[in-house]
């Protein structure tokens, strides 16, 4: 069963869409779906206030939930998603894919702040840009993204992958300042340029720069040892994302290790 929610009007305040997920809509009639409640600022309103609901019960219909319209004021799309597929035919608000542990979210436009924060599994694709703190932690939490795959085909804001612990986060274009700050582990790949303070306080993990060579802080040291096996494993996986990452296995690398102010076992990999 697939459900299509078409935006009727842009809300005046921010709308929290947590709980509107494919699994929650399974077996519900159109009327029941319309009566589901969401918060709009301090109000609790029916979903039908914002969306026209259409169901497709055809056997061949994919088990997915489609949002149609510009949803930049709709937050927490795909919040704690465990399975199923969500497609946003436009932009999404903050916290898209946050805390998801399975399934897939595909945003055809851009996304706001904190996309994929504390994501633990599944796949989040954003065709446009993401705001600050993507793949990072919820405010006050110690660990950021800890699994799954985040693919941003546009640019990303500041503090991308702050405190990230596991998983793969890929940005096709540029990223802002403090990329991979306090990174615990995981894999990050950047197709464009990165801002200032790359890897500030990173402990472990790999950050791959396919585009411009990164500015490396003095708390990183050049790596002299050969790491070609790990690079081939990583490069072959990243190459599957295409775009600037295609052909990575054939390219050589130069690595820096750090941040020595923290654990010092992270690596910045510049692709030559």
């Amino acid at each position: 069963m697939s459900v299509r929610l078409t935006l009727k009007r842009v809300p005046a305040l921010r709308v929290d869409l947590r709980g509107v997920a494919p699994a929650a809509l399974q077996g519900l009639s159109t009327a029941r779906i319309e009566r589901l409640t969401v918060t709009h600022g301090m109000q609790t309103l029916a979903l039908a206030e914002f969306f026209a609901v259409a169901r497709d019960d055809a056997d061949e219909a994919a088990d997915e939930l489609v949002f149609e319209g510009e949803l930049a004021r709709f937050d927490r799309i795909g919040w704690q998603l465990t399975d199923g597929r969500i497609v946003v035919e436009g932009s999404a608000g903050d916290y898209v894919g946050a805390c998801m542990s399975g399934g897939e979210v595909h945003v055809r436009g851009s996304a706001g702040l904190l996309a994929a924060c504390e994501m633990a599994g599944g796949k989040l694709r954003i065709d446009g840009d993401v705001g600050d703190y993507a793949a990072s932690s919820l405010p006050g939490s110690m660990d950021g993204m800890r699994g799954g795959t985040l693919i941003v085909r546009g640019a990303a804001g500041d503090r991308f992958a702050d405190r990230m612990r596991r998983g793969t986060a890929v940005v096709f274009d540029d990223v802002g300042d403090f990329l991979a700050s306090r990174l615990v582990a995981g894999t990050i790949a950047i197709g464009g340029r990165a801002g200032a303070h790359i890897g500030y306080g990173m402990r472990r993990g790999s950050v791959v720069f396919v585009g411009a060579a990164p500015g490396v802080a003095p708390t990183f040291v050049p790596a002299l040892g050969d790491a070609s096996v790990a690079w081939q494993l990583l490069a072959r996986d990243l190459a599957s994302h295409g775009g600037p990452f295609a052909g990575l296995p054939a390219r050589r690398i130069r690595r820096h290790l750090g941040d020595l102010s923290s654990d010092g076992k992270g690596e910045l990999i510049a692709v030559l």
Partner: protein
Amino acid sequence: MTTPAPPNTPAGAAARASTSERPGTRPVSEARILNGVVIDDTFAEAFPMKATRILITAHNLTWARHAAVSATGFATSVIACGCEAGIEAEIGPDDTPDGRPGYSVLFFSMSGKELAKQIERRVGQCVLTCPTTAVFAGFPRTGNERAEGEVIGLGRNLRFFGDGWQISKVINGVRYWRIPVMDGEFVAQETTTLTKAVGGGNLLILATDTDAALLLAEAAVRAMRRLPNVVMPFPGGVVRSGSKVGSKYAALRASTNAAFCPGLYGLTADSEITPDVHCVLEIVIDGLTEADVGAAMLAGMRACIEIGADGGLRRISAGNYGGKLGPYLFHLHRLLDMQGGES
């Protein structure tokens, strides 16, 4: 190639022979004769084992081979080696996870626990130590290995050699360990998968002399090595000390296969030797499935039969332990029939 032996050839004489005519020899009246070679109406008896496949890659094939040979050394028989192992095949750069050449290696043991111990020791001492190598699990991923309880450590415990400098890397759902070593880093996949397997398939090659027996055994092993999923764990794939189950000495689980020792012809009541046989060599085959072992035995038989009586081959037999060893029975005649080996 597979015409019956004329009565004046040794094989033809063997075919006519019976226990009553020649005390101490087995009846061969039901034997089949192909290219002058008697194929005994008997079966090889094999037993269930646990197995795993690992891929060893290196900067070039030379170093991958050093590691593979070393890791599969002293792994001829579970009787005293803990496991049986061998190089299965050479793997090209296009078929390895890291794009480097390598070898696939099969390990077999009687239990998953023992196999886990052997893998850790052998990879730790022979692969980790070998310049430029990396090690990966060799079976395709099913995604459900942990639920099936069929996973053992590969780099899981070896990582502690890194003394805290080891790094875990999860790539596409697979965890690898990167252990700093003096030539760079040793990369090992965290786990490898076990599978049920079959050990102890065998062929006995009864020849006129040592030269002929070696030539025949080498040809058989070459033919078997072209097949996937099998290894011949003994030196060069060949064993001259075929054994029987049990011994007159209580402490021994196995002892020399007296029935096939030419030196005991006429001395033992159950000798399988005929006067024209002066050298017997055995090929032991471990495989991932019953079909794999059977296919390897057939390939070996065909290679030997092609050389035939003119090459000094008199008989092909198999280690039949009367059902004491294991549940898998590989009947030589049936193998030949199933694969159209009879003409």
